[in-house]
């Protein structure tokens, strides 16, 4: 077989790419859980959230989240009658922005709302486990990554604590751990979901406002839900591929 220089130049990179894919296809160690069979996300059903803060407390307990930092938190929006009648103008008119509160992340619930005008709703927030996450792209050392099952994780042994990812996250979902001095964030309770359990926040939610979803599971009720409900993600214009879906999300939520 004679190969000329032109053919060689084509074959060599092709062989390199093929060899890379062979290396990447190494089967994972755990026999019970196959990472490639899952693509995790979450559904947040806004009309069901009562702002009790159970999810925030459960997350802190489960994941040893330090006080003052949050892997998940709940915000309460109040859109007044006037705000509903006038267009939202973030850039020039702060009066059109709804009141948002989140005392201690909503951990101990919210103060009683006495003003009955306008509308109120709660928005639980957490890492969106983006499929094209901005945070993993900026890491200079490869310490944060999207796992093969779609969960954005931090390798805390490898993290330098440079906080580029904290700045890159458009949703403000990361923080620097005050003791470990490394980036910390929601792991979607990776230690639970890989064992067939749901996340701590979903387990503790009394109304079912939060639900763990597996987009690769054809039997997951999320597929029907997405077709029959008005479901949105946060900041869709940033094309992050967010996998936390919000049912009945108000247009004023940022």
């Amino acid at each position, binding site marked *: 077989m004679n190969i000329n220089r032109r053919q060689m130049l084509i074959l060599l990179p092709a062989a390199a790419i093929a060899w890379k894919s062979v*290396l*990447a296809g*190494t089967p994972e*160690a*755990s026999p019970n859980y196959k*990472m490639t069979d899952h693509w995790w996300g979450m559904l947040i059903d806004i*009309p*069901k*959230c*009562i*702002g*009790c*803060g*159970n999810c925030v407390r*459960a997350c802190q*307990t*489960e*994941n040893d989240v330090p006080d003052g930092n949050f892997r998940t938190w709940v915000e*309460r929006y*109040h859109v007044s009658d006037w705000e509903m009648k006038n267009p939202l103008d973030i850039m020039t008119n702060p009066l059109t922005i709804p009141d948002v509160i989140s005392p201690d992340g909503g951990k101990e*619930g*919210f103060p*009683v*709302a*006495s*003003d*009955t005008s306008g509308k*109120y*709703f*709660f928005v639980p927030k957490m890492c969106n486990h983006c499929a094209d996450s901005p945070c993993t792209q900026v890491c200079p050392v*490869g*310490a*944060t*990554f*999207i*796992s*093969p099952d779609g969960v954005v*994780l931090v*390798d805390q*042994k*490898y993290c330098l604590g440079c906080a580029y990812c904290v700045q890159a996250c458009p949703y403000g979902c990361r923080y620097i751990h005050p003791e470990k001095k490394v980036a910390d964030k929601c*792991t979607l309770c*990776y*230690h*639970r979901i*890989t*064992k067939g*359990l*749901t996340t*701590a926040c979903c*387990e*503790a*939610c*009394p*109304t*079912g406002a939060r639900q763990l979803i597996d987009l690769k599971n054809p039997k997951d009720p999320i597929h029907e839900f997405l077709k029959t409900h008005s479901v949105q993600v946060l900041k869709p214009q940033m094309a992050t591929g967010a996998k936390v879906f919000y049912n009945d999300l108000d247009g004023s939520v940022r």
Partner: protein
Amino acid sequence: MSVFKDAGHLIRFAGLFVLAFVVFLVVRHYVVPKSFGQYGHYRGAAIGEIAAHPMKFAGHDTCEACHTDVVDKKSKGKHAHVNCEACHGAQAQHADDPSTVKPVLPDTTVLCARCHTASAAKPKGFPQVVPAEHSNGMPCDTCHQPHNPGMDAPPADAQAKAAGGVK
């Protein structure tokens, strides 16, 4: 051999280059973790380490395996779909060692109010009361059975408790 006649300096330099490359490979072998690049540009072993984090919440399936009587009671009422640990807190330790680790019974005055205190911010259909007006500071479980809170299934000793609470 005439080709290499005046190439001695180039060969020495090439040798140096090869040596530096070998040193680089050796250092790289020890510095880069074994599993780096297994799934992508990160340490593959990190996934297993994160998955090894200890659990605090046992999960309702674990609770329901033993507490079948509570499951029956709950299934008839409005709290049927509220998981055990939503009220009782993280109980993985209790599930691991039920005889020594005993869960603390929640105080219903505080616990119920977290969800059921009336507020204009809560969804309209959600049952909510002003605790001070509704019960005058009496614990909720005086009249309501937390596992089945409807008034058709009051606690067995409701009358006695109410009498004690009012004095």
